C-alpha cells in the first residue's frame, strides 16, 4: 500500500447478474446477462481529504460507495482501510472495530430514517450497537452533544422523523453517522434530495465537521459545482470505470479526458457570461452492453480505431491519472479552461 494512503482501492470490480430466471433462459435460449457496474477501479484517499466521485446516473458511483462500506461484497479487487484489508478481516471482533470507524450518509433523508423510531433512538443505535456508552446518562449526553453538533437541540431527540424538514432530517442522518465516532464517512449524494438553500447549509455543516473532527470523506455526487466546493480530489466515472482523477483545481482548470470536458461543458452558466452549453450528442450506453475498447468512444469527438478496440489504461499525469489513448498519444491538446473564472 502506498505511503500516505488511508483508503486504498485497487482493481475493484462488482458485477451484478441480471439474467432472466433459469427456466425462462433455457426456454427462450437467452444468455446470462451481467452488468459490470464497477469494472476495475483504483482510488487512493489520504487521511483528512475529501475524495469525490462524479458521473451520470448508472455509471456505478453509488455501487462504489456501497462496496467501500461493505454493503456489497466486491466481485474482485481489494479495499484497504488504514492498512486493513476489508475482505479478509471477516472475523467478528476486528471487523466491527473497522465498521465503527466508517459510516455512511444516504441520499434520501426520507427513506433512511426509521419513521417509527424517535430521533433519540435513531442516533443512539450505533452507540448501543458498538457499546460506546457507560450508562444511560452518558448515552443521553452523547446523543445531546451529537444533536448540537449538527445544529439541532437535545430536545429534538424526543420527536419523530416526520416532524422534521428534509434538511433537518439530513442533519439527523449526519448525527447518526457521527454517533460511532467514525473517521471516514461515505456520503452518497447527501444533498441531491434537498433544495439549494438547504443544500448550502448541509454542505457548510459537513465542511465544518470535517475540520473539527478531522474526518475523511468519500463524496458521491452528480453535481460538479457541489464537488468543486467540497473536494480535495475528484474522480470522474463513466460506465463503471474511472476515466480521470485529479486534484480539484487541476481537474476544473485543466480537464483532460474528453468525457470530463463534456461534463464541465454542461454545467449551467450562472454568471451569464454568454458561454453556451455545448450539447453533446449521444447518451450513456447501457451498462449491460458497454461499447468495446474505451467505453466513451461512441460519443467522443477524438475517437479513432485504437479507441474502438483497446481499453485505455489509467496513466499518471499532472498529479492525477487519465485513461485515454488520445491524451497518451498527445492527439488531444490539453489546455487551460476558464470554467472557474468569473465572467
Amino acid at each position, binding site marked *: 500500500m502506498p505511503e500516505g494512503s488511508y483508503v486504498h482501492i485497487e482493481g475493484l470490480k462488482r458485477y451484478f447478474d441480471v439474467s432472466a430466471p433459469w427456466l425462462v433462459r433455457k426456454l427462450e435460449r437467452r444468455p446470462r446477462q451481467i452488468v459490470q457496474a464497477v469494472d476495475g477501479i483504483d482510488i487512493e484517499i489520504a487521511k483528512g481529504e475529501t475524495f469525490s466521485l462524479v458521473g451520470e446516473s448508472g455509471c456505478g458511483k453509488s455501487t462504489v460507495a456501497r462496496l467501500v462500506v461493505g454493503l456489497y461484497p466486491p466481485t474482485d479487487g481489494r479495499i484497504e482501510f488504514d492498512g486493513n484489508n476489508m475482505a479478509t478481516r471477516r472475523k467478528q471482533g476486528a471487523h466491527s472495530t473497522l465498521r465503527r470507524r466508517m459510516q455512511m450518509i444516504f441520499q434520501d433523508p426520507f427513506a433512511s430514517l426509521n419513521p417509527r423510531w424517535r430521533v433519540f433512538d435513531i442516533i443512539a443505535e450505533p452507540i448501543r450497537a458498538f457499546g460506546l456508552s457507560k450508562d444511560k446518562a452518558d448515552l443521553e449526553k452523547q446523543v445531546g452533544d451529537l444533536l448540537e453538533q449538527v445544529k439541532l437541540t437535545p430536545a429534538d431527540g424526543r420527536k419523530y422523523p416526520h416532524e422534521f*424538514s428534509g434538511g433537518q432530517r439530513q442533519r439527523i442522518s449526519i448525527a447518526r453517522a457521527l454517533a460511532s465516532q467514525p473517521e471516514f464517512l461515505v456520503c452518497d449524494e447527501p444533498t441531491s434530495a434537498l433544495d439549494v438553500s438547504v443544500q448550502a447549509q448541509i454542505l457548510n455543516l459537513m465542511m465544518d465537521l470535517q475540520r473539527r473532527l478531522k474526518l475523511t470523506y468519500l463524496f458521491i455526487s452528480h453535481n460538479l459545482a457541489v464537488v468543486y*466546493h467540497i473536494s480535495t480530489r475528484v474522480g470522474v466515472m463513466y460506465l463503471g470505470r474511472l476515466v480521470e482523477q485529479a486534484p480539484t483545481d487541476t481537474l476544473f482548470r485543466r480537464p483532460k479526458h474528453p468525457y470530463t470536458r463534456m461534463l464541465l461543458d454542461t454545467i449551467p452558466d450562472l454568471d451569464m457570461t454568454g458561454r453556451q452549453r455545448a450539447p*453533446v450528442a449521444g447518451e450513456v450506453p447501457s451498462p449491460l452492453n458497454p461499447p468495446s475498447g474505451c467505453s466513451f468512444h461512441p460519443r467522443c469527438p477524438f475517437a479513432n480505431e485504437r479507441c474502438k478496440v483497446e481499453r485505455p489504461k489509467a496513466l499518471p499525469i499532472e498529479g492525477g491519472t487519465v485513461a485515454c489513448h488520445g491524451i497518451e498519444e498527445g492527439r488531444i491538446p490539453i489546455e487551460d479552461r476558464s470554467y*472557474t473564472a*468569473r465572467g
Partner: protein
Amino acid sequence: MATNNPPLLEVRNLRVEFPTRRGTLLAVDDVSFDIAPGEVLGVVGESGAGKSLTGNAIIGLLEPPGRIAAGEIRLEGKRIDNLPYEEMRKIRGARIGAIFQDPLTSLNPLYSVSHQLVETIQTHLPLSASAARARALELLKEVGIPGAEERIDHYPHQFSGGMRQRVVIALALCAGPRLIVADEPTTALDVSIQAQIIALLKKLCREHGTAVMLVTHDMGVIAETADRVAVMYAGRIVEVGPVRDVIKHAQHPYTKGLMGSIPSLGVRTERLTQIDGSMPRLTAIPKGCAFNPRCTARGERCLVERPDLMPAGASRAACWLHDARGVGAPVPLARETVNA
C-alpha cells in the same frame, strides 16, 4: 422580447386553495404575471413554493381538492380559468401544450409513439390519418429523433429518457400551441442530456414563436433559457424581472440568498452563503412578509405588514427595503431559525 404587444397569457391575483380538515391551506397567494407571445418566463422556487400549482392552474389540471379560489387567467384575452372541463380540454393541447417532469409517466406505455401522436393531432386538427402520421413524423424529426421513420412505431419503453422527453415535446407541439407550460422538463435527466433538451426547447420556441412558462427549481436552466424570471416563495412571487437582472442584481433578500447558496464554479470559498431555516409549511405561514423569519434584513414592519411587488432596480420585488418607508427598526433573527 416584444413587450408592447398585448400579453398572450395574463394571470391576475391567482389564489389556489386546498380545503383540509384543519382549515384551508393557501398554496398560491395572489399571484399575477404576464407572458408575452414568444417569451420564455422562468418560474423558480424551492419545493412547496407553489410554482407547479401555478402551472397546473393555468392548464386546468389542478388535482382536487385543490381549487382556484380567486383571480383570473386569460389566454389571448379570453378567460380560461372558469371554463367547463370539455372546453378546457379543447384548449389544452391545441393552444396550451404541457411538458411534465417524468417523460415515462406522460406517455402511455401501451400505445406506440405514432399512435399517441396521431391521436393528439387528430383531436385538435382536421387531418386525415395519413396526413396526421406525416405530421407526426415531421415533428419527431424536428425534435431530433434519429431514424424517425423507424422509431415512430416504437413504444415508449424502447426510448431512453432523453429521447422520451423529445417525444413528449413533440406531443406538446402537435397542434401548434401558442403557450407551453413546461414543469421541470429536465429534472429527471442527466446533465449532458439536459443541455440537449434545453437547446431543443429554445430552438423550437424561437422558430414557432411559442411562449413558454418554464417551471423549475434549477436556476442554471433558467439562466440559459428564460427571458424573464419570477421567483416564488411560500405561494407568492417575491421578485420578477429580466433574467439577467434577477441573477446578477437580485433585489429581494430571498433571491440574493438563493443565488448565493448555489455552488458555482467561481471563487472557491471556505463556506457557501446559506439561508438559515427552511421554507414555512403551508399550515404556518408567518404574518407579514412570509420570508421574515429567515431574513437578516428584517425590520418591525416586515413582521406585521405584507409587502406587494414594487419597483426595485430593473425588476420588481416584494420587499419593504424598496419602499420609501423602509422596514422599520431592525429585528434580529430568532435563535431557532438559525438552527432549523
